[in-house]
């Protein structure tokens, strides 16, 4: 469809090839970088201020480097790191879309970034307004009544949601024991269920990759607290029987929990509240483009239907007259964060929503789904889809033909893609798909970039036929080759001070 594929993060070596010494290895006693204010505060010896029984005999060894050496060290580390800004990052289920610099600039505004979290409400009206504005918008997007912005990430949102579920049932004198999870769910779901004090009941998927409604009915009962569902699910497929699922769960008095990992697919098209969900968490670092930070910070607000609003964590920012104040819901489950949540992440998400508005967010979803479906069709001859029909924002493909013909596995394809200048897709997830490669291109990648990815996979398929051994050794042009994970686990070296094997 396009004559000239887009640029990509490809060169040999792909990025910084030479090992970088650690901060401790470049340290030279007596060197330093820090500069502090002149304060004129009387410089009394520490031993006069604090009983010596509390003082360490020697200062903690940090490192001793010049500012220039620190800059060189960290910059070289950054050159050994792939990122969204560098190239396409189609890591399924993670929504690695472009993170607008504008939103970073909003978060850097000293009017927001310099504010102490315990300053009184009268002196933080702007921040409370940010929280209220965001909560109202997230509720409009999800079709819910109220939300907490405290959870710091998706998994924190899940656990918060489960505690809300528990508080709701207990308030009705209702003791329930189990939470149902599809076999395609993210691992955080069952882990959160355990921490929420419930047992996991797994419900299988049917041959269409969707929750098996009959099997679900078979495991439902009066001891079921609820179900956790991702929709579209982790295969990238929309749960078409959601209305029936919701009715069945509500029938036994259970609640529906919406895992918002895949919310990007449905913005402005269908809302969790309208599907019958009672509790919804969102991953602002996915859907609302706040940067993933190498593994956080994220933000995992939880929105609820009206009958659960009284249980939300507190305090919450609320409107009061023409201004804003804090209020704790009457039957609140309590705090789930040390302060008010990952506030600067929340501010970024609000800025993203301001820019997009209703129509812009809908276009985001539509183009995410368009890109995923185009990629699914474009790659069908090499990597067939696990379920060959319309997908949502991501497509789960299989490397089974390459494995059967040449012994080349999904992992080999993923590693070879790194050589080609692309981040790998998610591999071997969902667990129910053989040789799974889950691609989530996101809406911000151009058709030219998608075509470049497709051509890279075509080259890998040719290599699979001609040089499968070479693919087992991939990647070779990256800062390091495949790493010995077993060795790392067998003899843990988690600090520079640990004894080496």
């Amino acid at each position, binding site marked *: *469809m396009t004559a000239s594929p887009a640029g990509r993060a490809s060169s040999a070596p792909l990025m910084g090839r030479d090992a970088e010494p*650690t901060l401790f290895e470049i340290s030279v006693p007596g060197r330093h970088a*820090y500069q*502090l204010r002149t304060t*004129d505060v009387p410089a009394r010896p520490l031993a006069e201020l604090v009983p010596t029984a509390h003082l360490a005999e020697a*200062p*903690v*060894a940090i490192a*001793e480097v010049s500012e220039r050496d620190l800059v060189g060290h960290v*910059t070289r580390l950054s*050159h050994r*790191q792939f990122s969204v*800004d560098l190239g396409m990052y189609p890591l399924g289920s993670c929504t690695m879309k*472009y993170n*607008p610099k*504008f939103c970073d600039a909003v978060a850097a505004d000293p*009017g927001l970034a*310099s504010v*102490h*979290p315990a300053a*009184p409400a009268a002196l933080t*009206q*702007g921040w409370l*307004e940010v929280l209220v504005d965001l909560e109202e918008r997230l509720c409009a997007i999800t079709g819910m009544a109220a939300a907490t912005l405290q959870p*710091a990430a998706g998994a*924190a949102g*899940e*656990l918060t949601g489960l505690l809300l579920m528990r508080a709701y049932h207990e308030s009705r004198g209702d003791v329930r024991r189990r939470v149902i999870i599809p076999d395609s769910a*993210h691992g955080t779901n*069952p882990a959160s269920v355990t*921490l*929420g004090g419930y047992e996991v009941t797994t419900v299988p998927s049917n041959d269409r990759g969707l929750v098996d409604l009959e099997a679900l009915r078979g495991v439902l009962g009066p001891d079921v607290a609820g179900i956790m569902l991702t929709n579209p699910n982790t295969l990238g497929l929309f749960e*078409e029987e959601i209305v029936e699922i919701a009715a069945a769960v509500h029938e036994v008095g259970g609640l529906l929990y919406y895992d918002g990992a895949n919310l990007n697919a449905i913005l402005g098209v269908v809302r969790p509240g309208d*599907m019958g969900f009672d509790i919804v968490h969102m991953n602002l670092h996915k859907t609302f483009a706040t*940067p*993933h930070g190498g593994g*956080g*910070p994220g933000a995992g607000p939880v929105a609820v239907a009206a009958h659960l609003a009284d249980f939300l964590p507190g305090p919450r920012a609320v409107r009061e007259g023409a201004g804003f104040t804090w209020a704790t819901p009457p039957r609140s489950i*309590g705090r789930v*964060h040390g*302060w008010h949540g990952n*506030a*600067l992440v929340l*501010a970024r998400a609000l800025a993203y929503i301001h*820019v997009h508005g*209703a129509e*812009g967010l809908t*276009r985001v979803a539509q183009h995410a*789904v*368009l890109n995923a*479906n*185009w990629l699914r*069709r474009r790659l069908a001859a090499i990597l067939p889809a696990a379920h060959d029909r319309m997908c949502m924002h991501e497509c789960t493909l299989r490397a089974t033909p390459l494995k059967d013909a040449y012994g080349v596995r999904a992992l080999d394809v993923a590693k070879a893609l790194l050589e080609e200048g692309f981040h790998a897709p998610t591999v071997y997830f969902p667990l129910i798909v053989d040789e799974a490669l889950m691609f989530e291109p996101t809406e911000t990648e151009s*058709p030219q970039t998608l075509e470049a990815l497709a051509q890279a996979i075509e080259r890998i398929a040719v290599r699979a036929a001609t040089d499968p051994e070479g693919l087992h050794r991939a990647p070779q042009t990256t800062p*390091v080759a495949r*790493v*010995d994970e077993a060795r790392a*686990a067998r003899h843990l*070296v*988690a600090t520079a001070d640990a004894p080496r094997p």
Partner: protein
Amino acid sequence: MADYLPHTPEEVATMLALVGVDSLEGLYAHVPSAVRLAGGLDLPAGVSEPDAAALVAGYGARNGARASELVCFAGAGAYDHEVPPVVRALAGRSEFVTAYTPYQPEVAQGVLQAIFEYQTLVARLAGLPIANASLYDGATALVEALNMAHGATGRSRMLVSSGVHPHWRAVARTFAAGTGHEVVEVPLVGGRTDWSGLDPEGVAAVVVAYPNYLGVLEDPAEAKALAESVGALLVVAGDPVAAGVLRSAGSWGADVFVGEGQPFGTALSFGGPYLGLFACAEDQVRRLPGRIVGETLDTEGRRAYVTTLRAREQDIRREKATSNVCTNQTLMAVTAAIQLGWLGTAGLREVATRCAQGAHYLFDELVGLEGVTPVTTEPFFREFALRLRRPAREVIARLAQEGILAGVALEALVGPGDRSIDAPEDVLLVAVTERRTRAEIDHYVAAMRGALQ
């Protein structure tokens, strides 16, 4: 309407043709019409970045407590430390900012090595051999420590000093509803934990804050003795800046160290994103929550880093995982490593010392005022609590008019019935960092004198 989509209308049409539908809406034909949203989202229309900039600038301008308006003497776990341009520039590099969890170590050595350096620094500050790759914040790090203690002992009773930050205790109570842990909040008497008269049965963890949230340097040896006598883990919640000069948690016999890492390079940020510090003893490593980075070799024998001991984690172990943590606070951990590199051994010591010097100077001046009495005579480090003859929130409002954020009103920090302090409405918690000058402190004292007259 604005967005960041690259597609031209012609490209959309070509792509739709390959997919086999004739419109973008057609991509959703299989979504039941009964649940589809008619009429679009009820949100304002989108605006361009320059237009949105005007909108969002108003938020910051309406925060009276921003640094350009008020000089910060508030602490309570969030401190106004120097973050130099070099740290902001390095930590803001988009390679770190726009990557995700290092699932592909061959192209993530930058983040992995930075985390490894961070783990090394946290372990040294804690005086313990192992640190993880970060947790959400200090409060949730405490919760993970309690879960670890439950795993280690099979018991569920948690003795938590009321000197632990009130919000952290509140978070521990919230999550105990799910785990079934019994969180026993041990009272403070005169600013110190009263460990006497506790039922030692079934105790999994003894938690002490060092210094405690009132600033007091308690003797962790008492908590250690109690933990040892009942076979429980000792968890020390520490101030990481103070840890630069104080005896380490490990040297007091802690099994787990938790802390709030915000002071290392992260702005006050209205409370987040912050950084949960977590370190532990060697024998607890298989129960560690979240990610941990280990050193290893690649197939060509070169040093390399990778996330390890993965069999503990939620994506492998599912409902039997040690924690549900996935996304954590990596960027803040990387930032902390860079900030500590900038400070170095001498700088951290200097910052900690100056905090203590400033705090003691201000304390001595304030307790000389009429209407001010110290809450306790116990030793403190960089923060202290004062009982005022007027309500603390009124004093804070008054000093704000003089350009000072006077501290944190305990009334706003502690919940009802808190066993750490009586009559919290009269108590002001004051913190001093290395950024506060003598002139600022003297101005504070003069303003306080006026406010109490």
